């Protein structure tokens, strides 16, 4: 009985009703827009929402923007990128561009590579649309195949055409879903969080520091070793950085 009461109390404290969540969201917005602005209070309100499971692109976007206005470049890029991954929007792209403009690293030399082909394909497609198309075309293919068998030979012309189109659509969309799944599971990106992070040649505290990266830089996380992760910059520069210096997206 007592345990049940305690559990209920804890649950009540850690849960916001939709109205409470909206009120906290507005509280963050009010802190952001008051004169003078209180970006720290706005950020705290949005973080509370995240901690209590009320996430989504809107909260992430506002949190990233508050961090950006507060001069915290690392968290700003992190939350804006996370919002972008959930749902693309113009305002996210604009604020991300502003964050990138303030970022202190200029990548030069090497072989400047954009993201790998699969990642670019996944990035260019809408996950939900592709998933829905894939699902629909698969079932349509099955239906058309059954119908095809029922039709008299010689009366199958239109059915053949539809069946072929359906098979092509199913193959393409299912491949895109497969690419998306592969990218999500194999292509891990992160954002440099501290103002300065030292990147070493080898995963060890005594290894030579090859270069430094700064807050807000988006990197690819290649592998892990102990407390280090190997990162790769977009110009193919690589090194090992303390795990705490890079937060995965």
């Amino acid at each position, binding site marked *: 009985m007592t345990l049940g009461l305690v559990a209920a109390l804890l649950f009540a404290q850690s849960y916001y009703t*939709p109205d409470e*969540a*909206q009120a906290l*969201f*507005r509280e963050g*917005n009010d802190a*952001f*827009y008051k004169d003078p602005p209180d970006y720290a209070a706005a950020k705290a309100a949005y973080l509370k*929402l995240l901690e209590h499971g*009320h*996430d*989504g*692109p*809107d*909260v992430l*976007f*506002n949190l990233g*923007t*508050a961090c*950006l*206005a507060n001069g915290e470049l690392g968290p700003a890029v992190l939350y804006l990128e996370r919002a972008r991954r*959930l*749902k693309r929007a*113009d*305002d996210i792209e*604009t*604020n991300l561009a*502003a964050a990138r403009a303030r970022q202190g690293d200029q990548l030069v030399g090497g072989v400047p590579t954009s993201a790998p082909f699969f990642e670019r394909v996944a990035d260019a497609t809408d*996950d*939900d649309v592709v*998933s*829905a198309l*894939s*699902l629909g075309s*698969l*079932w349509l*293919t*099955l239906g058309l*195949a*059954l119908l095809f068998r029922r039709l*008299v*030979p*010689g009366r199958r012309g239109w059915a053949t055409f539809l069946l072929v189109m359906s098979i092509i659509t199913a193959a393409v969309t*299912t491949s895109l*879903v497969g690419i*998306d*799944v592969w990218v*999500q599971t194999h292509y891990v990106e992160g954002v440099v969080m501290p103002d300065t992070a030292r990147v070493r040649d080898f995963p060890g505290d005594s290894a030579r520091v090859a270069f430094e990266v700064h807050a807000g830089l988006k990197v690819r996380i290649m592998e892990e070793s102990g407390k280090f992760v190997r990162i790769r910059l977009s110009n193919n520069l690589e090194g090992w950085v303390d795990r705490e210096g890079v937060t995965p997206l």
Partner: protein
Amino acid sequence: MKKTGSALALATVLFAAAAHAEVEFYQTVDRQKVGTEDTFRLTIVVGNAPEGATVQYPAPNDFEVLQTSQSTQMSYSLGSGNQGVIKRVQKYTLVMRANRAGKLTIPPAALATAQKTYKTDSIVMEAVKGRLQADAAPPPSGRPSLPPGFPDPFQGFFGDDDPFGGQPQVPEPDVPRSEQDLFVRATLDKETAYVGEQLNLTLHIYSRVELSSVDAVTMPKLEGFLSEDLDSPTQLAPEQRVINGVPYRSYLLRRRALFALKPGVITIGAAEADITTGMFFQGHRVHRKGNALTVTIKALPKEAAGLTVGHWRIGAEASQTTVQVGTPIQVRVALEGKGHLKSATLPKLTGPAALRIYEPTTTDKSAITRGTLGGRRVQEYVVLPQQTGSFVLPGLTLQYFNPESNRVEESKTDPITVTVTPGAGGANFAAAPSNVGTANDGPKNRLEAGGLKQLRHTANFGAASRPMWQRSWFAPAAAGPLALGLAFGAFGLIRRLGGATDPASEKKKKARAARARLAAAEKLKRSGKTQDFYGEVEKALFGFLEARLGFAAAGLTREQLDQKMSEAGVSELVRARVKSSLETCDMGRFAPGMGDVHARASALDEAAAAMEAWDSK
């Protein structure tokens, strides 16, 4: 010009009004105790000296005679019997300095007459090492000093342009023993100063000989200071000065203003000069090295760290306060006062985004007032109003440290309100048709986008949390069609393998084969031979009949076939269609005109219709 104590000075008595008057002869000093760096005066007084008498100065070994001078006084008085008596007193003044410390004696002076030689008493003096005499403040050059207690009647009369206060006072320098006829001395007007406070360094030549020229002056390195020239004369201008009672001609070589950059005790090295003495071809060149100086620089108080030092005031003014949008105005911010102008920083003019403020142009004009460096800096901003409305350029505040008052002071300007009205282009320009384009291109209320996008005002907490493919039902739903297709295929295969002897399936198989044959006949509809086409259609029909009736119908006559179909329960209508289709095939192989496409299509449709009618019976 050096004088020695043993030198003989001859005085000739021109006349004696009363030869019988008693001769008065003695010597005195103005003090009994002196320092070896001090000078003192020995006065030899001769009264009623007979004609032809000569005075011999004392020739002490322990003293140095720096200067001699002579004066004569005459007085007239009534003596006994109302007889007038004229008294004549001659005074010989010797400026002297002790050569060493100790009890020293000035020997007697002598007065030689035709009858006898008079001698004064010797004088015993006490000399100590160094200086006992306080530095007497020299009177200001050109303006006589006033007795203490008397107010200066000219105080404030001249204001800042006091012609008698033009230059700072130079303290009396120490006279070096070895080069006392010609020496170079540097002086500072202060012994301590704050970082950034002005110090005046002055370099003089002091001379008792004729100077021809100063050929070269090497100033010391002024490390730790910013320095500005105050005075650097190109011609030697002598000025009379009496130092320790000795008259000198002083020549100003340089005067510089120094501003210390950091606190601490800073030593300024000695300046040097190459000087040519004597006139014309008699001159010779000498090198003189001046004295080093030490000054203590104090750090600014904590509250004044980083502030401009001096005494300043700022002002701001706008060329217009009511303008049309797009019309620039000028805002001048001026800084004026005393101090190092080049180091002074003006607060930056800021304003609302509606007023675009361009980088200013800066004009500096240095000035020297009574030896103090200062000046005026003017920054001129161009301000371009971009929106209509009333906007305020906030007032500027300059904080500075005033070393004279030892505290942080500030000077402020008033805010400037600028009223921006809409551009006049619209109606006025629109009236002239040729200028319609100009009116449209005129100044606009500029509303510039940029910066961060606004926050989202409402949140949808649950939406778009993850892609569809990550949801649990997606994988089974996507695998469903494939699995079902495989299942149907497997089922059909199993049925095909397991149902080979099943009569029903055999019938269906034959029926499918018959339909397939009919489809093959369709391929011959346009291009194949007529007999082949109708043969295929007939084979398809017989195949179908065999599948449906369970026996081969190819060898039966039409009557036999009709009977079998009747026995099998086939309706009259279907039987008629089948027979009609078979007859069409027979006729098609032999009758002319049955080979065209329309006839073939008709035969195909007829056969297909017969099959359909049978299956739907």
